[in-house]
């Protein structure tokens, strides 16, 4: 039995119907135009519609308020009231819901950030939305095509939805077959036709469905959407193979924007494949419910009988059930779907992508929680230590006011204007680059909560926290949409997202930490990151951080550096005054340090690196030393100069000298032999053999029994292991070359007998 499967393609044609209001904008009505067997969806104001968005599976939901166009009816616009799915609610706000969401649940959107005027040509179809009062439970999941709304979302909190807002819904919910005269009359004819054509249907490639939902009479204008299915995903149990002939001229192409991966992976799969059909679940179901199957038969196209439709829509239903019930990741679903089908279909030629066992989706990344809660700091020193820990979030961020203001202004202006831009921030480690940006974002979030600026999304990636530069795409996409895809696919999706206009787009602020790690040979990751903000519809602000000031000049090729632009900022290492201020502000009135002690630490660190982390670590260590030195922990006083000195000593002093002093006698002798040999040769390098001769002489001088060569080698290896000596590979045996890793003076100083 040969079966052949074809691919689904859908184009849509949008046309006006009805009579327009003559408003301030000129509207024109458009007559009913029957052309072929395409499925027509008619949307009218007051209905709930699906709008094309970034996610093919979960299109945006909105209520259509108004339709209007311009004179030339080139542009078709629509005014909508948005609804949100939970997946569109920012990640950190999802918890506010306080319960697990119903899979079909949507929220009435009360925010103002989203443009409520959309392009009518992005409407996909209609959907059924039902208002559920707050205290009643969600209806049993019987009808999958219905969405439920219970709460409203005003970008800050979920509120109980005022039923008044949904009132006119009830009037227009069941898209009642006002059943335009033509459709009703043609229904019977179509049935006959379709039945007649069942036999020849095999060679018709396309299923065109026609769906018309009509209007409440009050509204004059409606929009008719015609879905063309050029090659339907229908498997027919028919043996004949005939090339697909498409007769009808294609009026307007809307390219199927499927995922590239999908298109590659899918081709030979059958009608029950979920993916391509899934998008039209809603339409199918609508068709089913309203039984508005119309076919005007002047074409030899196949129109599926009601029964067939029923069955297929049932299937779709189960599919949609699956997908909505489990918010699983698409990849897993796909594999699952494919697997269960392989058994049925014989010549399954799906180019099986290597299915690596991916993280089970049920797995939630978390560390088990402790049985006993962590103890809170008990005394002043412990309190000080907790405050001085680098991880503790300070109340304020002193000493970076200027930088803060600059970054704040930059991001704020971009968010306000809805434009994009790049900024490059450099500075040595521990100068507060990331902390400052986080602070900026925190303030901006606050401002947007107060409705001073539009809402925006903040995403953070770190070059060190990924295994490969291309993982950047995956992480960005995952943080934006919660999708998990491969790097290439993610790049394509992001490209699409940032280059296409889309309704409901808020500004994205992207922080790229450790930028230099994103370097690849072709630099395409960096290129894309800096190119996206320049797109018209991207609304993307990219803040990049790296350690070196001249990174753009050093490692970036011209086209990348040029896109990064010249908005640069560099964080200077902290001066001692600033360090002191940082510590003081962190301690915040907890009196644990003497003034002088603080000053010593900050001066020392400022002289060396200006690294605030180091400064805090030293202070923390000093409190520990102070605590230990006191006889009883509670009696410990302030941290004094001596404690700080000890901590500084511990952290800055080189351990080489102590190590040499603590080495065994033969090891010390060997070091002396090395120096003697260096002096003899006038070089800083000698072979072990040469040194060993010296060693033997020296031990005779010292009156020690000379050691054997094997033992001498062991001594040498021990010194090499702790890197007092630098050695060649040990397979060279006694010919390996020896160098000192410490200066000769240090060795001699360390070997001088200590008089005490």
């Amino acid at each position, binding site marked *: 039995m040969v079966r052949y499967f074809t691919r689904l393609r859908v184009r849509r044609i949008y046309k006006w119907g009805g009579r327009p209001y003559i408003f301030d904008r000129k509207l024109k009505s458009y007559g009913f135009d029957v052309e072929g067997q395409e499925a027509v969806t008619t949307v009218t104001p007051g209905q709930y519609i699906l709008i094309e968005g970034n996610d093919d599976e979960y299109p945006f939901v909105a209520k259509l308020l108004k339709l209007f166009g311009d004179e030339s009816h080139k542009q078709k616009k629509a005014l909508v009231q948005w609804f949100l799915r939970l997946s569109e609610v920012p990640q950190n706000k999802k918890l506010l819901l306080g319960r697990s969401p119903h899979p079909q649940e949507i929220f009435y959107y009360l925010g103002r950030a989203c443009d409520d005027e959309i392009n009518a040509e992005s409407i996909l179809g209609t959907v059924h939305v039902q208002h559920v009062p707050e205290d009643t439970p969600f209806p049993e999941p019987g009808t999958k095509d219905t969405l439920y709304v219970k709460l409203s979302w005003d970008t800050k909190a979920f509120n109980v939805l005022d039923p008044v807002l949904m009132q006119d819904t009830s009037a227009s919910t069941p898209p009642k077959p006002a059943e335009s005269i033509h459709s009703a009359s043609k229904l019977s004819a179509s049935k006959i036709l379709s039945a007649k054509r069942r036999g020849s249907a095999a060679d018709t490639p396309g299923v065109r469905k026609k769906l018309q939902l009509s209007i409440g009479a009050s509204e004059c204008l409606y929009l008719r959407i015609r879905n063309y299915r050029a090659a339907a995903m229908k498997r027919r149990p028919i043996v004949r193979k005939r090339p697909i002939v498409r007769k009808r001229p294609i009026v307007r192409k809307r390219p199927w924007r499927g995922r590239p991966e999908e298109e590659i992976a899918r081709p030979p799969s059958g009608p029950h494949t979920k993916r391509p059909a899934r998008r039209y679940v809603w339409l199918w179901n609508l068709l089913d419910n309203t039984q508005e199957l119309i076919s005007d038969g002047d074409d030899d196209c196949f129109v599926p009988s009601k029964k067939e439709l029923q069955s297929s829509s049932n299937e779709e239903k189960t599919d949609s059930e699956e997908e909505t019930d489990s918010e699983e990741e698409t990849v897993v679903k796909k594999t699952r779907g494919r697997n269960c089908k392989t058994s049925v279909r014989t010549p399954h030629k799906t180019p099986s992508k290597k299915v690596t*066992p*991916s*993280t*089970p989706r*049920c*797995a939630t*990344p*978390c*560390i*088990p*929680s*402790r*049985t*006993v*809660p*962590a103890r809170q700091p008990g005394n002043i020193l*412990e309190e000080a*230590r907790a405050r001085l*820990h*680098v*991880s*503790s979030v300070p109340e304020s961020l002193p000493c970076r006011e200027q930088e803060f203001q600059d970054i704040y202004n930059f991001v704020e202006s971009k968010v306000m204007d809805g434009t994009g831009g790049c900024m490059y921030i450099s500075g*040595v*480690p521990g100068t507060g680059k990331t902390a400052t940006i986080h602070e900026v974002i925190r303030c901006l979030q606050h401002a947007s909560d107060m409705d001073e600026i539009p809402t925006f999304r903040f995403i953070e990636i770190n070059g*060190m*926290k*990924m295994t*490969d530069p291309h*993982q950047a795409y995956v992480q960005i996409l995952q943080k934006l949409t919660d999708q998990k895809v491969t790097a290439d696919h993610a790049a394509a999706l992001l490209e699409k997202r940032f280059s296409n206009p889309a309704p409901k787009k808020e500004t994205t602020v992207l922080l790229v930490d450790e930028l230099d790690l994103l370097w690849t040979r072709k630099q395409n990751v960096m290129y894309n990151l800096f190119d996206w903000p320049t797109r018209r519809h991207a609304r993307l602000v990219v803040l990049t951080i790296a*350690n070196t000031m001249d990174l753009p000049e050093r490692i970036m090729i011209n086209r990348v550096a040029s896109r990064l632009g010249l908005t640069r900022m560099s964080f200077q290492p902290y001066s001692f005054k600033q360090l002191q201020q940082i510590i003081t502000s962190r301690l915040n009135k907890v009196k644990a340090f003497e003034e002088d002690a603080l000053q010593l630490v900050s001066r020392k660190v400022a002289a060396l*690196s200006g*690294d605030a*982390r*180091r400064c805090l670590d*030293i202070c923390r*260590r000093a409190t520990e030393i102070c605590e230990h030195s006191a006889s009883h922990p509670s009696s410990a006083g302030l941290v004094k100069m001596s404690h700080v000195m000890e901590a500084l000593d511990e952290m800055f002093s080189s*351990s080489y000298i*102590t190590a040499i*002093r*603590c*080495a*065994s*006698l*033969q*090891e010390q002798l060997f070091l002396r032999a090395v120096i003697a040999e260096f002096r003899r040769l006038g070089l800083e390098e000698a072979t072990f*053999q040469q040194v*060993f001769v010296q060693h*033997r002489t020296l031990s005779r001088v010292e009156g*020690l029994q000379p050691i054997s*060569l*094997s*033992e001498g080698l*062991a001594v040498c290896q021990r010194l090499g*292991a*702790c*890197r*007092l000596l630098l050695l060649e590979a040990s397979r060279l045996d*006694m*010919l390996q070359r020896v160098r000192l*890793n410490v200066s000769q003076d240090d060795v001699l100083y360390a070997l001088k007998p200590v008089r005490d």
Partner: protein
Amino acid sequence: MSKRKVKETHMPVGECISQVQMILRERFCHQRLPEKPVGMESQHKHLLELLRRTAVHGESNSVLIVGPRGSGKTMLLNCVLRELLEVKDVNKNVLPVHLNGLLQTDDRIALKEITRQLNLENVVGDKVFGSFAENLAFLLEALKKGDRSSSRPVLFILDEFDLFAHHKNQTLLYNLLDVSQSAQAPVAVIGLTCRLDVLELLEKRVKSRFSHRQIHLLSSLSFIQYLDNVRSQLSLPQDFPDTKFYDEWNDSIKTLCEDQLVVDVLQSHYNSSKDFRSLHLLLMLALSRVSASKPAIKPTDLLEASRVCMVDSKANILHGLSILELCLIIAMKHLNDIYEGEPFNFQMVHNEFKKFLQRKSHSIHNFDKPVVIKAFEHLQQLELIKSMDSSTAKIQKEYQLMKLLLDHSQIMEALQKYPQCPTDVKQWAMSAFG
């Protein structure tokens, strides 16, 4: 002593000896941790306090334990962990993760191992699911979700820390240290290394995230302490079943440690290295000479053991050579003298050998060249000589440049001990030039 049980049990000597050997071997093979680490009290206290703060207060920390090989880094850490886990609050609250730079040779393996040991939810049985990137993201997400007060502290123990610094981009170290410096799940990163310059290996952004706490284990043990330590290591514990044998053994150990011969042996060991691992090897060898017929360690046992420990491995090989091979070695030695350590080839050695045969030899008859070549190759296989050319391809065997991996003293010593060495060969060896 006085507290011991009055009732004295007697066991056969053989049984006592096997008991003794079991107890002491356990000690020397590091199967049981000592009661208290010796000579590192302050370090012990520092580390214990640090880890306790992580375990009890949820304070993140990072620390490096640096010390030469055999100085007791792992022992110290294990002692601290044991002590820490004895505390009731802590016992169920910490998650130790052990990694070793020699086993986890790259970040991919290390991440899988961490995930496995933490038993996160993407572990099924012993298998970790997901790609490298997924694992990293998963682990970071897990650590990020935790917070100071509610999640269990994780102790990352990185043995051979310096090897982790050679991983690509030092991703693992950066992330672990970054977690330890940010308000996420509390972690303590403990690195063990013998390299004193380990901080120079870290990239600057990794270094900045490290807290710069280093605990140095440099033993400044004096010889007296060393000797005390030997005594306590050999002594039996008080709960030894046979009290009579206990007394006898401990007395014998006490006299043993006062013996001048033993003191000399130990002194030379002490001079060579202070670490306990080599000492344990010595004592182990001495212990193995104890039997039922000789139920105590005698000074000579220790002397013999030290001889075994200190023996020059190459001198031993020389004893097993044939006369022909020995003659070749001597020829090489002369060549070394003449050309001041420049490399030689087979042809030169053979000429030297032939000169010797013509001029002086009476006892050694002429060998065919192939036989000599065979002997030469045997020496090369024993790695007494080493080829200096990197590629052996082009040059004929006879002309490959070689170097001798033996010292004069080793050759002369071997000749002295060689059984029935012909006198003319000995003389040839001792003569100044050829």
